[in-house]
């Protein structure tokens, strides 16, 4: 029993890395652009489905697929911010009104992407497993891709963190998030910065989709549940906090595996909700959130 719990926890941590990656992009988009991007899961879906297409159709290694998919999704996210959300921001009477309008516009975009994908690719399951052979580790059985996806997610998480905290562009992004007007006066091209951060969020979602596609059969309807998980992880970790997203992702990963493995697979989302409720009552800023 102890060994079973230990193995569930390890798999949960590995699984949580991907959740952290999904949440990170969302957190970045909300933290910088003030857009609660509920289309995030649809970008995950696009990443996953395109990986499947490249893998099955053109025999591209799924782990190399982001080289092609990444720029595509970055461009899509970039365009969304540079056209739709930028216009909404310019026309909104107040920041609060902008957040509400942007949310509703994102809700519309969600349906556009989802049903566009459904028309193009249908609703069938698309299995494109990769590296799914079993290995023994410390006397327990694991699937290889769990380690690989975790390593990639962690590496990307660290890279994005370093990019935001150390690089010149990262400093511009943080300055814009803090106060776009003043950042503009300091010579930051804020429109470019906002669009780039939104694109970066979409890119991270796309890579998340690629990682998911190595583990489970994907479909065009997978966006919505992924958005829900990403949103819950973001709130748990603290809105706008990148390390917080990662910690909360791992926490959610462990909880989901323990609930599914020891108790009841259908009840994972209600358990997330219970956690969310406790958190909002006790510490609304999230695990690593400021203020």
């Amino acid at each position, binding site marked *: 029993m102890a060994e079973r719990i230990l193995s569930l926890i390890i798999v949960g941590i590995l699984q949580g890395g991907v959740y952290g990656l999904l949440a990170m992009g969302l957190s970045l988009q909300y933290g910088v652009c003030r857009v609660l991007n509920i289309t995030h899961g649809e970008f995950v879906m696009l990443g996953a489905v395109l990986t499947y297409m490249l893998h099955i159709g053109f025999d591209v290694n799924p782990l190399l697929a982001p080289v092609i998919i990444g720029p595509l999704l970055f461009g899509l996210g970039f365009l969304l911010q540079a056209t739709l959300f930028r*216009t909404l921001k310019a026309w909104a009477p107040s920041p609060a009104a902008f*957040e509400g*309008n942007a949310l*509703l516009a994102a809700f519309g975009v969600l*349906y*556009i992407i989802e049903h566009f994908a*459904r*028309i193009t690719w249908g609703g069938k399951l698309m299995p494109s497993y990769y590296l799914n052979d079993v290995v023994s580790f410390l006397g327990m059985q694991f699937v290889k891709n769990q380690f690989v996806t975790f390593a990639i997610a962690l590496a990307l998480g660290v890279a994005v963190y370093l990019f935001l905290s150390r690089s010149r562009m990262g400093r511009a992004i943080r300055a814009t998030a803090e106060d776009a007007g003043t950042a503009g006066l300091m010579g930051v091209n804020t429109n470019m910065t906002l669009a780039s951060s939104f694109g970066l969020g979409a890119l991270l979602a796309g890579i998340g989709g690629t990682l998911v596609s190595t583990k489970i059969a994907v479909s065009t309807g997978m966006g919505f549940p992924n958005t829900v998980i990403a*949103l819950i992880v973001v709130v748990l970790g603290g809105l706008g906090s990148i390390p917080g997203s990662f910690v909360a992702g791992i926490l959610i990963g462990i909880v989901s595996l323990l609930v599914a493995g020891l108790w009841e697979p259908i009840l994972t989302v209600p358990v997330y909700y219970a956690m969310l409720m406790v958190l909002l009552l006790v510490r609304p800023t999230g695990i690593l959130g400021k203020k």
Partner: protein
Amino acid sequence: MDITRFISTHRKLLLVGFLVLILIFITTFPLYTQASHVRLLTTLLIYVVLAVSWALFSGTTGYMSLAPAAFFGLGIYTMALLQKELPFFLIIAIGGLAAFIFALLIGLVTLRLRGIYFTIFTFGLVIFMTEIIQYLETRLWGQHGQHIDPIDNETIFYAMFVLVVVTVLAIYLIRRSRYGLALLSIGGNEEAAEHMGINTTRTKVLIFAISSFFMGATGVIAAPSLVYVNANIAFSTYYSFMPIFMAIFGGMGQIHGPIIGAVIFGYLEKTLRAQLFSYFMLGFGIIMVAVILFLPNGMMGLVPMLQSKLGGVISKIRKGGQAEQHANT
């Protein structure tokens, strides 16, 4: 007699007359049409309640609830579970009450905080409800889905009609009351509203719960025409999207905006959805984005715009008429 002047002086009278005509038309509707038209009108009325009650809370305060489907589905399941035990009209009240209490709990946890937490919380609520119901059905009741005995079209139609009248009247009165003003000031600037002595949390929670009451009651009335429901049918994101879309399309500033949106798109939905579901949803998504971008006040926002453009023409005509009268005397 100048028609434009008659309209502007007797506006209230005309409005009441128009409303009475509509009410008479709807009450007598089943007498001279086929059953399919009655069902169509029932669906339109369902969307009217959902859109109007969504706009009551989210349209005025700016706190975007993305979960009308959760409360609607709660009503459907209340009906499925209680249909054998209680009379239909009692279940409508119970379904509304269940949604009211559920919304109260959600509001108490999330509405103390910034709007973003509320939105995130409501977004996944549909999955939350689906999983809870699936768990109860498979593990405790040992069955999958529920059958609901059909009730004749006219009973459902009149029940729905009464609910629409009650809802629209209640929401009209709420909007005119102190609470309506409080909601608007919360939407404008919540901090300022608080400083003016409005108990913002209590107002938000109460109005959110009231709007959910109507959604739950609608779910009960909508349930019999589904005949069979399971968790995925009852709690479908579709019923979250449509009312929001309709309210935005019609315009959330006044009460008739969502009603017009619901009637137009309820009709389109009934006629187009079956064959081309995905194209239909794709088109709705595009229209939604376009409306938010170009018509922030929805179709109702067009009226003052047109008035200001046509106003010049009308007053010119009127002046012309006056000049003619002057010349005659």
